[in-house]
């Protein structure tokens, strides 16, 4: 079930467009933000709200790379390895995360805390190498900075901070 706040947000987003279908992608992303992934129920709910068939929602999901049909880690480390980051050690950062977390890209740590993803250009080229943890940017990375960040996220979780 969706929270009241999310329902209100859905209503507000749908009202922005003359054609409700326009809201599909924002609703998917906002719904995913709350639920953690796009569940079957979320698909049905969005289809119902914007008055399309579920297949039209499903068609969208697999098109957009930020949308997930399966749960992922609480912190999704999205490391850019595109050209500007590559030139400044993006691949090394990815490799470092891999070793440090013990998971391959698209994987999730057994405790469900971290997922790792190799992503395309994040628009952080002047701060390369860069990554996003969920929606937060981390730039001018070094392996040491990554270590400190992972540690900090672990502590944040232990202290009961939300996503």
């Amino acid at each position, binding site marked *: 079930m969706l929270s009241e706040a999310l329902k209100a947000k859905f209503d507000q987003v749908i009202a922005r467009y003359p054609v409700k279908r326009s809201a599909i992608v924002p609703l998917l992303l906002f719904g995913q933000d709350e639920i953690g992934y796009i569940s079957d129920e979320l698909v049905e709910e969005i289809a119902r709200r914007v008055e399309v068939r579920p297949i039209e929602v499903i068609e969208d999901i697999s*098109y957009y790379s930020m949308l997930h049909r399966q749960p992922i880690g609480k912190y999704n480390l999205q490391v850019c390895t595109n050209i500007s980051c590559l030139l400044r050690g993006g691949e090394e950062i990815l490799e470092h995360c891999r070793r440090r977390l013990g998971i391959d890209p698209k994987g999730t740590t057994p405790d469900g805390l971290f997922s790792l993803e190799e992503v395309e250009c994040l628009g952080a080229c002047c701060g390369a190498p860069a990554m996003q943890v969920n929606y937060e940017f981390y730039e001018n990375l070094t392996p040491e900075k990554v270590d400190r960040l992972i540690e900090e996220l672990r502590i944040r979780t232990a202290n009961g901070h939300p996503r």
Partner: protein
Amino acid sequence: MARGDEAGEIETPMPETTLATAAETVTLVIDGQSVTVPKGTLLIEAARQAGIEIPSYCYYPNLSLQGACRMCLVSIAKMPKLQTACTTIVSEGMTVHTQTPEVANARKAMLEFELTNHPLDCPVCDKGGECELQDAVFRYGAAETRFMEAKLHHEEKRFSNLVYYDWPRCILCYRCIRICDEGMDVNALGIAFRGARSEIIPNREDHLECEECGMCIDICPVGALTSGTYRYKARPWELSYTGTICNHCGDGCKTTLGVRNNEIIRANNRDHSGINGEFLCVKGRFGWDFVNSRQRLTVPLVRRNGHQEQSTWQEALSLTHKTLRAIGEKYGADSIAVIGSNRTTNEENYLLQRLARTLLGTNNIDHHRTADYSSLVSALTEARATDRYATMDDLSAAASVLLIGNDPTHQHPLAAYQIRQAVRLRGARLYVVNSAEIKLAVRQASVFVKVRAGGEADLVGSLADQRPVPPGLVLNGADKLGALAERLAKESDTIIVFGDELRGAAIGDLVRWGLTLPGRPRFMALGDYANSRGAADMGLLPGTLPGYRAVADPEARARYEAVWGAPVPAGEGRHIRAILDAAQSGEIKALVVFGSNPVKTFQLPEGALSRLAFLVVSELFPTETTACADVVLPAASFAEKSGTVTNTSGQLQWMRRPARGFDVPDSALGPVPTRAEPILNTMRRTGTRSDLEILLALAREFGARWPYRSAEDVLREIIASVPGYAVALPPLLMGRAVATQAEGTPPPLERPDLVFTSRDSLFTSGTVSRFSWALNSVEESKQPHGHIF
């Protein structure tokens, strides 16, 4: 592509040709050849008109434009880059080259790209031999590839029992999606993922919920979408192909049967030559498989000591003749009745009523009437408007359609398709009057008047007599009817289509009012089954001779007496309900049934026919009626005989018996039991006879000398003597649909409950559908009638 939900708000990009008027033309030069085409024509179509082929996959006439396959790249003067001919609208003075080295290289390059992930499993691919990709590679090169990488692979998927998807073969031309969205308005297919991993997905993620029409399979240029009943069964060149007429609903679609070894392997309509063009529904494409059913009756049965036992044709026919003659002599001709079929051919129906009237001496003949054609003929004749029958072709070209009753999406898939085409491609307006929110009303109608159940006739009465609308008749707003009348008064050439909700006097009202509409309004009655219309036209009616001539009319009787050389009884016979009542009361002693199952259709109580002294039934399958029979005659199916059928809109078509296919020694067919038809190299189910053969043999038993040796002979007589059927034979035999023009003043409808539809769904079709694996195998067949996909 717009999904239609916001039709009116969003315009689906369509080739402008479909909307352009042909008045203005444009002249251009293609490969040095001057071509003049209507303004707005797409370059690819202009080239085709000039006999210049430009290859394409994603381009498909009447579907939205994609610009996806890039096969149609051509060189246009003054354009720096090659242009897609499928998205370019011709302009005056345009100079186009389709054969330059640059164009040839581009085509070759596109094919090389297509083949990178496409498996070369042509030897086992269903499409091998009729694959557009194979053909293009053959024609434009790219037989060698420089692709050294591993090909992507996914396992094939079963979308339904009838539709399979083989991803690696898919070239993503999106024809399937568009025919489903735009042509069928079903929206059952989508696309998932992106880039080289893009794939076609079914609407229920791992399976389809749809009409199962198989249009997606037919339109697939490669072997990506394959048929559940045909896949891996045959090479296309092993089959012999015969275009015939589908035997299920009343629309009269052409379906091409592919036959091998005396067995139908598949059906489709790939040459688009019938009235249905590219269209076929699930029944036309898959529903023929009852022909191959093991439950077919193949041996005549005769009841001995209370049990039906196998017999010979000679014994069964001789027994039938002797018993009928004895009962006639003992109880009089009125003790015998005949129930005909709405599936058998016109020739068979014509002979059946001739047998009843001249050999049995009775007008007790009727059939399950599913539309009141007689009243329509009568009303149009009285109004001197017998040129106002609308055909299926008219429907797709219509500017305005009024649909009263019926649910064509389920009951008349072609009519529904034609209406959707008219709305989608020609901007036609659809007006619907119905007691149910049928799909056409929800999706395509400009005005929908929802009436209470059974209220269609009252509504027509109100329109015709400008009476006030009875309270409670219109359910979705009192102003709806006014809006409808107002809109229709502004339309021209409206085609009025109606179902069994209108019958008898209501049809008179409809015609009277309809003819006052502007332009040339035309009419179409919708009845079930392949030859409902033909059954009425051929006089399977107690008061009506062939061609809607009243039995009571001495002139009409004299006309047929002259043709048949025998007297025709003068009094009107009993209608079907009276026949069945009399059979139960004992007044009717003998009943002759051809291709009908009255026990089920009229829901007769058990033992209802037990008082009959004699019941003979000619049928394909064991039914509730054959179970009561004293003699059961195993009949040939539509795929095993020739003859004409008349679709619900009055179009006459030749049902052609297929060749039996390759490599069948004569002995494998068993003894051929009759010489009535010349023995040809045609399909036959061992042991069966066509109803025509049966009727001719019975007539011989009666000592009659009927002058026919074949269905063509009977047809010639029909053409010569039945009013409205004076058509030219050659176009008919060449597979064209010829419009008949029924006229006459048959007696009025005896009672309303003689006309009722079977309410078949897309997956049912009376008796025969019960024996179709394909129609019963799909999940959707378990949905209630009217379920919208």
